[in-house]
């Protein structure tokens, strides 16, 4: 169905505005409906939020450097853990992937722009409004939300003046995400070049198509959950209050019905970027394209039926414990398929190790480590030990930092030359990689030990026997944090001209075999594919 509509869309009305460049001056960035401009806005905003959330992480690690309370008040510490998570999830990782989707999806499927350009602009600016509102709670009486990013009642209802503002900001972020997701899904389903069938789409497009559906399904659930918090607090309802016939655990069920797919929203596009980059630098087609597609879809489906594995110790009937354990263990199968496929893609390739590839390889290894600990925690009785300890902190940071963040960095290095027409400084890029890859392990690996030794998460101070690993972890954290400034430097430097080396259209050797974006000039013109391409590179036929 999509191929037919796509043909009609492109030919006529895009020709006349083809010559138009962007609006002059700063207003360009406010009113733009161009997918490349909006992609840039998303990426710049996400990078800024990465440093904001990172600063909060530095405060957390500084307080945990030694036992005893040194720098902050426990309540502020709790606000930091809460805000660090919210900012990183909703301000950095998700917007960064939406930014990549904005930039790359139209170029990868041969479309001139996103399907709904005005809504695209609106979803970006709602994101900014949402995050600013969230950040403003830091300055409110009673402080920013401090009940954890999961916002569990009754604790979250003890938040001071900030509660309704935080909830409204979640609403705004939700609306923004839903609009972004609808836009991406509509673009992928309707605007592909005629020759691009679904099973010829690049993996990044596939993972975003599936992620888009996940987002559309889950964001309203989260909005509903926080709205119930709002009415419980201000309108005398008792959804989550036992005294009025409600149940605080109900919130957790609703939250994690959103929350589990949500973590896959952050990891599926990560997979997509890895599946895009690894074949180029292995000089070999992606191994098992169709099984990659099916595995992604299977992971997305499983995401909806495993939520209560976040709640093994909450007090569930034994049948619930067992069901959620079995269902969760199943995730290992499609995830394993993906890891094996990446490995097989590298196998017998002719690999080179530019910065994007370095990040991608370390992603495969370190994400797999995060997957292992995930498998360990799926074993429900063992989770009675692991749950809410530093073990889980290590687990999800392995799946988010050296996975999602690393692949965002990899994507940045990979596509920056295409976007800007300049080559980044490979030496500094590799330095950034090595510093990041080593320090991220110094930062997070010891947290496994801390959790197993009995250190709970979300505590501002700890018993003496946890001192050594905490200090090592903090040192790793400071190195990791500082190393990211290199990335900022490289991005700015590349935009300003980079190495001065003129990049070719395909930038990377034979990249044009792997994706449509490499058939376009570097830097990419403001408007591309005003007429759809007729030849589709497809390396898996």
């Amino acid at each position, binding site marked *: 169905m999509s191929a037919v509509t796509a043909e009609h869309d492109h030919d006529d009305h895009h020709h006349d505005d083809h010559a138009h460049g962007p609006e002059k001056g700063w207003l360009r960035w406010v009113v733009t409906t161009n997918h490349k401009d909006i992609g840039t806005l998303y990426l710049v905003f996400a990078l800024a939020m990465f440093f904001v959330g990172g600063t909060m992480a530095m405060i957390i690690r500084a307080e945990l450097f030694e036992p005893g309370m040194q720098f902050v008040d426990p*309540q502020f510490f709790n606000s930091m853990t809460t805000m660090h998570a919210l900012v990183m999830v909703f301000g950095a990782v998700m917007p960064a992937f939406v930014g990549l989707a904005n930039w790359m999806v139209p170029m990868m499927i041969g479309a001139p722009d996103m399907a709904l350009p005005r809504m695209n602009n609106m979803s970006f600016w709602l994101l900014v409004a949402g995050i600013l509102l969230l950040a403003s709670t830091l300055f409110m009486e009673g402080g920013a939300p401090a009940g954890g990013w999961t916002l569990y009642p009754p604790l979250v209802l003890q938040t001071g003046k900030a509660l309704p503002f935080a909830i409204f900001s979640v609403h705004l972020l939700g609306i923004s995400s839903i609009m972004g997701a609808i836009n991406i899904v509509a673009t992928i389903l309707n605007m592909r070049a005629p020759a691009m069938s679904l099973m010829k789409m690049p993996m990044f497009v596939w993972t975003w198509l599936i992620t888009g559906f996940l987002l559309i399904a889950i964001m309203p659930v989260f909005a509903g959950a926080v709205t119930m918090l709002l009415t419980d607090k201000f309108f005398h309802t008792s959804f989550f209050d036992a005294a009025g016939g409600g149940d605080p*655990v109900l919130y957790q069920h609703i939250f994690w019905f959103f929350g589990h797919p949500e973590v896959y929203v952050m990891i599926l596009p990560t997979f997509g970027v890895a599946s895009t980059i690894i074949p180029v630098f292995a000089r070999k087609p992606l*191994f098992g394209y169709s099984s990659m597609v099916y595995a992604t879809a299977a992971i997305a489906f499983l995401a909806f039926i495993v939520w209560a594995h976040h709640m093994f110790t909450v007090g569930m009937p034994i049948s619930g*414990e067992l069901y959620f354990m079995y269902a969760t263990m199943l995730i290992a199968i499609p995830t394993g398929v993906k890891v094996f496929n990446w490995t097989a893609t590298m196998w017998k*390739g*002719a690999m080179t190790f530019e910065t994007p590839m370095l990040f991608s390889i370390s992603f495969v290894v370190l994400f797999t480590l995060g997957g292992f600990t995930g498998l360990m925690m799926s074993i429900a009785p063992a989770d009675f030990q692991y749950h*809410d300890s530093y073990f889980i902190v290590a687990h999800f940071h392995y799946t988010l930092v050296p996975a999602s963040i690393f692949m965002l960095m990899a994507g940045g290095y990979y596509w920056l030359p295409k976007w800007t027409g300049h080559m980044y400084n490979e030496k500094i890029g590799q330095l950034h990689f090595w510093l990041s890859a080593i320090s991220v392990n110094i930062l997070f690996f010891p947290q496994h030990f801390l959790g197993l030794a009995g250190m709970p998460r979300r505590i501002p101070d700890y018993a003496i026997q946890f001192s050594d690993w905490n200090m090592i972890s903090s040192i790793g954290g400071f190195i990791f944090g500082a190393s990211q400034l290199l990335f900022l430097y490289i991005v700015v430097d590349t935009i300003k001209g980079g190495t001065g080396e003129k990049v070719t259209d395909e930038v990377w050797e034979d990249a044009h075999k792997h994706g449509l974006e490499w058939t376009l000039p570097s830097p990419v013109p403001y408007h591309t594919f005003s007429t759809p391409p007729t030849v589709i590179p497809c390396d898996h036929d």
Partner: protein
Amino acid sequence: MKKIKQLFAGAMLTTFGLPIAQADYALNLMEGVTKVSNDIYDLHMLILWICVFIGIAVFGTIFYSIYHHRKSKGHEAAHFHEHTTVEIIWTIIPTIILVAMAIPATKTMLELDDVQESEMSIKVTGKQWYWDYQYLDSGVHFESHLDEISEKSHRGHTIDPHTVPNYLLSVDRPLVIPINKKIRFVFTSADVIHSWWVPDLGWKKDANPGFINEAWTSVPTPGVYRGQCTELCGRDHGFMPIVVIAMNQGDYDNWVKTTLEKQNAKPDLSDQSHEQLMANGSSVYLKNCVACHQIDGKGVVGNYPALRGSAKVTGGVDPLIGFLQAGTSKMPSFAKLKDNELAAVITYIRNSPDIGNKVGDEIQPKAITPVYDDDE
């Protein structure tokens, strides 16, 4: 360079698997003292070794490939991009491993869940920020707060945590249990969700307000077992530890007897010296008031009012007594405090240099009685 990383990862994984029991630089899960905790430890080691094994295979392949299949060594890229047999194999083998894992996991889960035929029950109530233990059979009932020295250390910045024995892991009144008895715990909460975790027992369980959760343990060896609250429960979440002392039945029976005697004894309401009142008051304050009003009595701006210079504190005594006993929507009632404790803490907050008030009086326990109708 990659090699170094591989070595690093390998070294980490190997050491990870070694059962080292030292306190500092501890690496692995503790085996614990109960049968359930040992079973969980075995499950943990099993799945850990499976992961290590798969990790060696996968990462080994990746690093072999990185070393040999690189362009700089002149390796030509192959062109295969699918292999149905291989893909089926690496779907089926993990499935078999998972089924093999699920069987012992299910067994342990059933064991963990079975609270039937317990010999005694203890009700555990989580409160911001301490635990309340009620022995449903014998009637022993007490609160368990973070010990005073840890409390002073983390709040006062004057005592080095390294000098505090079991910093943040000691309580004023530990939970005492007999060995070799199947003890059923029932969990609930008075305010927000807490979670009760003693790693040596092998599990944690959430304490949900308005609901009851169950768990059980049977400890075979006498000893002291420590743990903490593991569900974020607000400001002092990090400061509500758990200490369990398991003792022989005889010792336990004695403990119950003396505890009940003390619990049922009438409080000593005779007059006390100023110093005595202040000392007792300080300890009541550290257990009951410090979490909100802070060690310096300054409270927390926007959340908890200051006692320092507060007219309510330094003004009339009777209204203050009434206020403490009744509580408000924001402040809990402290009717639970005995007259001598109430007298001491009121004297303390009116006169302590730490709090910053100096009324210059002492409130004797007898001053409380006319107002406080204690029907015990």
